[in-house]
Structure formats: C-alpha cells, structure tokens
C-alpha cells in the first residue's frame, strides 16, 4: 500500500477549507466585529468600538426575557421531537433491509418539500374555513369555526413536524450500530424486554440522541420562517427580533449583538447538556 503524501491530502481538503473560510469564518468574523461597533446612519456601522449593544442585549429585561423564552421554546421542541421520533427510529432500525429503504424514504421525504410549503399546509389545515374546522363543525363539536392559528402551540407543532427527520436519522444510525448479541445476552440473563430496552438499548443509543437533540435545538432557536408564518408575529422569538433590528431599524450592530447573544446562549446550553451526558456516554463507549 502506497502512503499518500501529506501535501496531496491537504490539496484535496483545500476546496472545503476555502469554502468554509469564505462563507462561514469571514462573515461570522464580520458579524462579531460589527456587534462591537457604534451605530451610524450614513453607513452600516460607525468606526468606534463599544460594549453598549451587549449591555442593552443582556441588561434590558425585555431582550433577556425573549432570549430565555426562545431557549425554553427550543428545549420544549427538542424534547417533543425526541419523544415523537424515538419510536419511529426504533422501528426503522428493526425492520429488514428491504423495508428499511422504503421507510427511510418515508422519513426523509418531508425534507424534499420546502419549509414554506409545509407551513402553508398547516395554515390551510388549521385556517378559519379549513378542513379541521369543517370536520369539527360537521361532528357538531363546535358551533362557530375557531381561530386556531397564530399562537405558540401551532408554532411548536409546525417546527416539530419539520424537525422529526433530523432526530430520527441519527438515532436510527446509533440503534443500527448496537450489536444484537448484547440484547440477546440481556434476554438470556433473564431481563424482560422492557428492562433490556432501559438498560441496554436506550443507553447505547445515547450518542444518536445527543446528536439529534443538539441539531434540533440549534435549528429550533434559530427558526424564523415558521414562527413568522404560523405565529403571525404574536409569538416573539429572538430571530424575529434580530430581523426587525436589521431590516426594520437598520440597527446592524445591535442586531448582530443580539444574534451573538443567542449563539452564545445556545452554545452554553448545548455544552451543559453534553457535559451532563458525558459520564453516561463514557460508560457506553466501550460497547459502541
């Protein structure tokens, strides 16, 4: 076997590194710098440096409240998506190869439809003259159609619907990586199916759970389109406040500071979750 020279490995990686640098590192660096700039009217931002935007973002009870609320809603969405996705992932991991492809396609298929289309789907289903109201009227459960849209439960429903595939896939991969012999051993030592699930299957799938929860949480707290459409601006989350600052008030530095505060809070929450799960992950690492 010929050893690949180091330079050619770097050469192969170069396009990716350039792409990441130009489209991720540079803009992000610019955002961080902008969040410390003074506001200006005749340019996107002034030349002087300031901490004022962070003092406002983290000192004003309103913005702190929105930040906390956004994190809480993101956590709720991640938990609900997990509860809904785990059984699907379990089933997907258990079916034979022939069915696996079909079910896999079913789980992934919603990703082929844009978020906008799916949101409009919910808007039509839940609308004042929509099918759900029609069915409830026909069953005689309500006398007047209900205005069901534009509240938090609908936003949560819409986002959970969008995020299920992102949770199912990593958990399925983790479950398929578990050696069947481990579960058989558990059975032969007298464990019931429930005990086997709780003490073998679930702990061994934790790496997949952590990946799925992290991904869904990050996507949920940065979602803008769904809260705007299904929340009708009544559900105030941080991304919509950031957008308002950027394109409504042209307050780019303050908007950037709010976005940074959101990113930082997200990193902290994900960090705490990862640290809390570390002892468990260490224990199962030997078997996976």
């Amino acid at each position: 076997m010929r050893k690949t020279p180091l330079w050619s490995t770097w050469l192969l990686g170069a396009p990716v590194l350039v792409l990441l640098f130009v489209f991720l590192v540079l803009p992000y660096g610019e955002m961080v710098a902008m969040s410390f700039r003074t506001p200006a009217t005749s340019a996107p931002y002034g030349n002087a440096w300031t901490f004022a935007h962070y003092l406002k973002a983290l000192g004003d009870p309103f913005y702190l409240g929105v930040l906390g609320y956004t994190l809480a809603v993101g956590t709720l969405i991640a938990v609900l998506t997990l509860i809904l996705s785990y059984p699907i992932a379990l089933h997907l991991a258990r079916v034979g190869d022939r069915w696996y492809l079909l079910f896999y396609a079913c789980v992934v298929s919603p990703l082929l439809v844009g978020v906008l289309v799916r949101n409009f789907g919910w808007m039509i289903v839940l609308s004042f003259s929509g099918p759900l109201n029609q069915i409830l009227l026909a069953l005689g459960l309500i006398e007047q159609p209900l205005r069901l849209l534009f509240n938090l439960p609908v936003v949560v429903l819409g986002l959970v619907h969008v995020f299920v595939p992102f949770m199912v896939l990593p958990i399925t991969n983790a479950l398929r990586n578990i050696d069947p012999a481990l579960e058989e051993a558990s059975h032969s030592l007298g464990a019931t199916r429930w005990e086997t699930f709780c003490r073998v299957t679930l702990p061994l799938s934790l790496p997949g759970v952590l990946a799925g929860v992290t991904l869904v949480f990050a996507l949920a707290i940065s979602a803008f389109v769904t809260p705007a459409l299904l929340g009708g601006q009544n559900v105030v989350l941080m991304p919509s406040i950031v957008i308002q600052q950027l394109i409504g008030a042209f307050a780019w530095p303050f908007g950037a500071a709010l976005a940074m505060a959101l990113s930082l809070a997200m990193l902290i929450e994900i960090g705490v979750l990862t640290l809390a799960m570390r002892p468990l992950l260490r224990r199962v690492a030997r078997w996976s």
Partner: protein
Amino acid sequence: MFQLTRRHMLAGLAGTAAMGSLATGFDRAAHAQGAPYVVNTYGGRWEKFWRAQLLPKLEPMLGRPVKLDIGLGNGWVSTFRAAGKDKSPFDVLMTNERYAVMLRDEGLLAPMPAAKITNLADVYPLARYKNDAAVTGIVSPIGIAYRTDLVKAPPTTWRELWDAKYKGQLGFYSVNNSLAVMFLMLAGKLFGKDELDLDTGFKKLAELKPFPQVDFSGAMAPLLTQGQVAIAPIDFAEAVALQQKGVPIGIVVPQDGVLMFDQSFNVAANAADKDASCKYIDFMLSPEVQTLLAKEFFTAPVNSKVKVPDELQAAIPVSGDNVSKILTFDWQFVARNREVMLDRWAKEI
C-alpha cells in the same frame, strides 16, 4: 469503462476556463453597445408590469437597454448606503417615502432637476415636495376591507375599529411595514394630541390585541380569503383583486381619512446619467403611464390631466381632487424615532 486521468482533468479545466473567457467576451460586447440603464421595482406583479408595459416604451426613449433591479425598500436602503455617495447602485430610486427620507437626510439623494421634468407642472400638490426634493409618482389609497359574510355591521371610520364587537377579527401589519407606522400615528391623532403622540398611539393599538401581524398587504389577502382575519386596513388594489377572485369582500373609504402607500421617485446624489433620470421620472408622471398604472394597480393618478375611466371608479374610490384629502405623515419624525418605535413595538404590541 471511463477512466478519469490527470490529462482528462486538465483538459476539462482548460475547457471550463475557455468558456469563462468567452462569457466575459460577450459581456464586454454588451457594454460596447451601451451599458444598461438600471431601474428598480418590486417583484411579482410589479416586475411583470414593468417588463411588459414600461420597458418596451422606455428603452427607445433612452436609447439604451434597461435592466431591472428587483427588491424591497429596506434592501435598497442598505445597498445605497453600502455604495456610498459617489457611486450609487442606480440613478433613480423608487421607494416608500419612509425609506427615501433616510437616504435624503444622509445626502445620498439630490433634488430633482425640476425644469427638465415637464409633467411636474400637472402633478397634484399632495405629490409635490419642498424644493422638488422628490415626487410621489404612485399613490395606492388605503381603506378598510371586511368580509361581508362575517361582519354584519361594517365600520365606517378608523375610530370604530376600537368597538368591542370587532375584537379578535382584526388583522394588522408588522412594524417593518409603513402601514403599521401610519396606523400607530393615526391612533395618536384620533385619540391623543396629534400624530406625533406615540404614547397614546401605542396604548390604543395595544387595546386592539390580539391580532395577527403580516409583513405586507399581499400576505393579508390569504388571511382575508380564509376568514382568519375579517377586518383589515388594506390598499384598495389588493381588496379589489380579492373581490374579482370571488371573495366576499366589502371596501370602506373611512370617513376620518384615507391613508396611502406612496412611491416617491428620487434622483441619486451622483446620478451617472441625469438626462436619462429626468426622462424616466417624466415618463412615470406622464398621463399615459399614470393611466396604465391605474388600470393595473388601481392607483390614484398623480397627474391632474388623467381622468379615471368610469369602469375603474369603483376600484379607485379616491381620485382626482379628492387625492388632496389623503392623510400624509411626517416621515422625517419616523426616521429619527425609528429605533424607539421599533423597541416599543416589540415590547408593547
């Protein structure tokens, strides 16, 4: 079996590079025939109308190809600011006055060479500016639309929207839409000291909650269609379009004043082609184009020589001398208090 060798790769790359240089060659050829004159407008129906009805007339008039810049007001503000005073992205900016006033304050827009724009003389006073800093070229009057099947006794004034019987049926706009700002100031004017009385405006607007907020009137239309919203301030053009689709919509011209979406036409501070810019603005103010706009968007003509055709009278309830009755607002005040308004809107509404 196809094997990709280094030679193939190199040949492929060379081919790609050749295509690239060919393309830039074509580009240069286009510039040699006269660089395109850039005109801005909105997407959707606006873009279609500009392409189909205006450009074929405009290009021979200017003797240059015309290119469209499709976008929204807040985007143009950003591009004008980013480009700076000496190098504006294009010569004439059409946008809501709430955006234009900011750029004008920052010296990015200059007064119009009024003498070269002959149609200005026929424009209603409402659309004229002090020192001809700009001109309102398009007026879309705004009233109240309501669902005839859901609202038994429709309101006849803005003031009546605060009647308890309409609670939960109203729809409004998010603060990024100028109509939201107008409505806030209108509430101050109706119930407080004057239109600058923001405290009263916010207090009264909060009384109407809960209501969905949309970003633009095109997004209000589906909510009215579904009945999710039964009463909303909306421009007559959008309401008539819904009526024509068969949605049971009634239109109210509020007795306490009609609002408007305006499009002001502004010349950039360092317009590259002042002559073409004057021709374009003159063309937009001409009776011919004002009539075309009225037919397409049910706008109230700003040129006093245009009489709204009979078949459009119902769709354009405010026109002719009545245009002067449309309420106008101090956008300079809005621009200076932008952040305060936005902050309070986020917290209180």
